[in-house]
């Protein structure tokens, strides 16, 4: 499973495109928002938590269909399915690789973009913590969506239709965490809920995703 993870990471790094693309997208979304709503810093700092979270969500969505599609096309997914490693483990590792290549850079880049959007300094730490807690859930849910749509010719649009409603709870608690952090309120509740969602999705969704993959490989 470690080998699988390092293989996916190596593929992502060396193939190019996938690795930095999500990050660049995140940057562009964040830069575009002030053009849309105007440069008043009070407004920006008010909506910054939501914008950053929605941006992270969309950037994550962008690379989801790559989780299984390439392996499905060249047949290595069939090999992985018949390998001694359980398919659930393969799914979990795929999701982990996706998180390291898209989620983690977003977490690290978020404070810089927070400065651009005039996010309150007190909320910076909560933003990083929230994204760090929440983005693994985004990758895991996304891997489930990708497993559902892997056999389809034009699955990309359908994938976003399936996955985005599933992102709602994560988005709510994530944005709430940052907003509360900015206002100096109690942050333990949304943080705990966010962590709970991530842990629960990581524990349960690999089984659902593996079931979907088995159907698609049948």
């Amino acid at each position, binding site marked *: 499973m470690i080998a699988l993870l390092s293989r996916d990471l190596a593929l992502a790094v060396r193939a190019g495109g996938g690795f930095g693309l999500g990050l660049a997208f995140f940057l562009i979304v964040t830069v575009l928002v002030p053009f849309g709503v105007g440069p008043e810093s009070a407004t920006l700092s008010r909506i910054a938590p939501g914008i950053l979270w929605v941006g992270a969500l969309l950037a994550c969505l962008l690379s989801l269909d790559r989780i299984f599609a390439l392996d499905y096309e060249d047949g290595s997914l069939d090999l992985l399915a018949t390998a001694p490693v359980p398919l659930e483990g393969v799914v979990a590792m795929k999701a982990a690789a996706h998180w390291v290549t898209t989620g983690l850079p977003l977490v690290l880049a978020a404070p810089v973009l927070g400065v651009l959007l005039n996010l309150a300094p007190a909320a910076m730490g909560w933003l990083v913590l929230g994204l760090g807690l929440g983005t693994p859930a985004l990758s895991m849910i996304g891997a489930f969506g990708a497993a559902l*749509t892997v056999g389809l010719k034009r699955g990309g649009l359908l994938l976003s239709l399936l996955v985005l409603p599933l992102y709602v*709870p994560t988005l709510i608690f994530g944005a709430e965490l940052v907003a509360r952090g900015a206002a100096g309120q109690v942050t333990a509740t949304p943080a705990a809920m966010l962590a709970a969602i991530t842990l629960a999705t990581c524990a349960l969704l690999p089984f*659902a995703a593996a079931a*979907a993959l088995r159907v*698609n490989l049948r």
Partner: protein
Amino acid sequence: MASLWQYANPQKFVQTTGAVLPALAVLTALALIAGLVWGFFFTPDDFRQGSTVKIIYLHVPAALMAINAWLMMLVASLIWLVRRHHVSALAARAAAPVGLTMTVIALLTGAIWGQPMWGTWWAWDPRLTSFLILGLFYLGYIALWAAIEDPDAAADLTAVLCMVGSVFAVLSRYAVNFWNQGLHQGASLSMDAEENVADVFYFPLLVCIAGFVLLFVTLVLLRTRTEIRARRIKALLARERMA
């Protein structure tokens, strides 16, 4: 021995529902006409809401069925996954557009009622928002059915989606509760509550709910029969090509 499972046989299902459907349709029409006419013309106006209160006869039953339709899809999906009865998968498929329609009816009637009462068509209230999300789940479910060509794979994948979606729908319901305070009033009818709507409104509402339940059952049976026939035609065409 007679059991529920004998209707897993499509032939048997089509036969039985064919015999039951006309009666069911008549009952549906009777209940809906009786409930709506009673509700619209023979109940007093509310002392504060005026005649807009009468939209309750469409809004509450539709909202109720929107949720129960998803519940029915969940049960049907589980039956499909466990026992591989095709009729069950087709019934889940047949129920989705009906459930989506009910969701839209509930949202629209709510907006029409909310405009004069709350002064707004839409508010980001937990109930409203979670209904919108439920509508999105229906859309995704229907789209997934439509996108996959192999019928068995489509049934399997949508069943998995239905199960995961159910968990997330419930989760979203409580998450939005956390996110925003509500404008929507609490339940206006329940078995144990002390504050239900007055009896004048209550009884026609019950008739309307019965009508909507019957309407849902009728439509789902009808659509399931259509699905079975469509699949049979496809099989016949395939056999013709082979010959």
